[in-house]
């Protein structure tokens, strides 16, 4: 197969997005907040619309800021519902994201004259158009696909976030009481994580759409969790899966002539269910011998 620079760009961008989402998703998984991550990716819609309205463009800083603010808002709303109204967690998440998403749809309709946001694009993006959506500076210099740059910036931001706050993220995910007791700002770390999720959603929705973002947030980490027992290998395996998903997703979509984002989800799903079958707890008769058992001395 000849080297197809378009294919490379698409796969490369897809991989960047997959790794970024994967890293955040690992911590969501460990904090048992996977559904909150899913909710936030829906809840950012009003922020995107307002940002678009204010700036006149779907590719602006205002959109990203709007999304980030809405990510924080939805986290606060879920928390308020739980603590003040004493609503259970799952219902708080459901009520919050549906309300915010509904407001987003209403705003799209309200601002239709100025906000040309295709609902379908928000949901599933189209990464195939990436190579032709180029970033050309005012001096005419072609810097390559705009979305790849966005994904790259996002990637480095998340890498930095994970690296510099690694111990804070891991300790607050493992033992929140202990973290608070020793003075680690658990609430702040949580809000920061949720902001990163909103930011990632919005900077990726153009290329891969909100659906794939959610899938990439949740499925590769869950898959990797079945295989590893330590945090850093978990992150590494999630990243590896992300790259594989990007590569396989692209070529399968090319082969079947389907949406790349959709195929990436399908590949992620295949890895996930396959791993569950292999690593799952089969009843004693069918079990392999590789599972270690707890020591009996105390």
């Amino acid at each position: 197969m000849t080297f197809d620079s378009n294919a490379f760009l698409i796969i490369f961008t897809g991989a960047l997005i997959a790794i970024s989402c994967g890293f955040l998703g690992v911590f969501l998984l460990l904090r048992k907040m996977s559904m909150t991550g899913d909710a936030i990716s829906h809840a950012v819609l009003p922020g995107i619309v307002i940002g678009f309205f204010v700036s006149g463009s779907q590719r602006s800083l205002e959109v990203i800021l709007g999304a980030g603010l809405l990510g924080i808002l939805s986290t606060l709303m879920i928390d308020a519902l739980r603590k003040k109204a004493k609503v259970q967690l799952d219902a708080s998440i459901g009520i919050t994201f549906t309300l915010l998403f509904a407001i987003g749809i209403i705003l799209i309709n309200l601002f239709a004259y100025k906000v040309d946001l295709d609902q379908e694009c928000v949901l599933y993006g189209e990464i195939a158009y990436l190579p032709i959506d180029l970033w050309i500076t005012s001096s005419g210099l072609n810097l390559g696909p705009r979305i790849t740059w966005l994904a790259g910036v996002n990637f480095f931001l998340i890498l930095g976030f994970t690296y510099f706050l690694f111990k804070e993220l891991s300790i607050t995910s493992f033992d929140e009481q202990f973290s608070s007791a020793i003075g680690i700002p658990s609430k702040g770390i949580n809000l920061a994580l949720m902001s990163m999720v909103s930011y990632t959603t919005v900077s990726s929705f153009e290329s891969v759409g909100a659906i794939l973002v959610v899938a990439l947030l949740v499925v590769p980490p869950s898959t990797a969790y079945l295989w590893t027992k330590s945090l850093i290998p978990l992150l590494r395996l999630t990243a590896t899966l992300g790259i594989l998903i990007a590569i396989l997703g692209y070529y399968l979509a090319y082969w079947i002539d389907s949406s790349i984002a959709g195929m990436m989800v399908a590949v992620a799903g295949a890895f996930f269910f396959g791993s569950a079958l292999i690593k799952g707890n089969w009843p004693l008769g069918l079990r392999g011998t590789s599972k270690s058992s707890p020591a009996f001395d105390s």
Partner: protein
Amino acid sequence: MEDFLYFFTFQDPSITWVVLGIMLLGIGSAYVGTFSFLDKKALLGDAISHAVLPGICLGFVLAGEKDPRYIVTGAFLSGALATFLSSWLKQHTKLSEDSITASILSVFFGIGIVALTAIQKSGNPEVAGLNSFIFGNAIGIAEADLFLYGGLSMAILLVLSLFLKEFRLMVFDPGFGKAIGFPMKGIRFVFNVLLILAVVIGIQAIGVVLMAALLITPGAAARFWTDRLQPLLLLAAFFSILSGILGTYVSFVLPQMPTGPWVVVFLSLIALLSFIFSPKSGIIRRFLARRNYLRKTHKDHLMKALFKAKEAHKERLTLEEIHALYPFHKKEITHSLQELTTQGLVLQDSQGIRLSTQGNSDAMRIVRLHRLWELYLNESMNIAPDHVHESAEQMEHLLTPELEAQLEQRLNYPTLDPHQETIPRDTP
């Protein structure tokens, strides 16, 4: 105004159909969803609404057109598979519930999108209707469909009503149900079937993403008003119907507005209002209760002050003296004195303010409670005399006559409190 009348007198048959459709959809989802909510599995409905998409596409492909029977069957199979996989994963892996739900949701939905884009590319003219599954299109509910979906909704309601006690067991005490011989697994299965059906019907009107609101929000809102199952279900259904009608009305008046999101907005509004105003857990009630409590404590303190003055052989207190005792509270003092006078507990004359006979008895009671409580804290709980006052300041307004009697008995009808002050009682 004209629009309003036109809409609500149902002169336009298509409006009537839409409203009827939304109502039926809403009732079914509210009923089923409330059970999910009580079961603490509220987001399962969200997962199922995403997971039915591949099945819907399959049904469409097999039928070649948007035939509801194929669609519903396909959706059903897809939803059932998702539910089965969820419980399998929960039992056989160490994954937590939320990650299983989120994974199943996104994978199934993603596959559904793949199928959908493939179908859209095939150029089948029937395809346009499929999009309504994702975004919902209440207005587009065809008359013919309405009969099928209406029928299914009625079926859901019927089954739920018939098996109310079984479902109640499933949610609140499955262990007990199993122990007394109910087929809990079968009941859970039937419930899941109903849930999937409700979802399939609902997402056509409101779309995949917002479906969760139709399931969760009515029950959550109703929960602020009642604890009992049947009123809860009825109220949830009522909220759902109300929001459905209001949402449809809005998109009638503003034609570019889609119905679904407005229904969700109204549902959330109802939930918010329920939270604020409901007597059970409402903010308003707490606010009023606190305000009344503060007023009562203020009056009690005034009476105490008058009583203590009497103990020091001062029959009356002038207004200035009272103001001196409680600086910065002039307004409250005036208000409290007014109320106390109206209640006949306090008498005002040219020389000052004094307690009436009844007022004296009441004030004595408060002082007695205060000192009894101080003694209780001090004697029974070893709390230092200088730390008992604040607690007594609060408890003197709360202790009931029964508790007072128990205190007296416990402390053996004492005469003095920890500060060597007499515990006053009415002379028999």
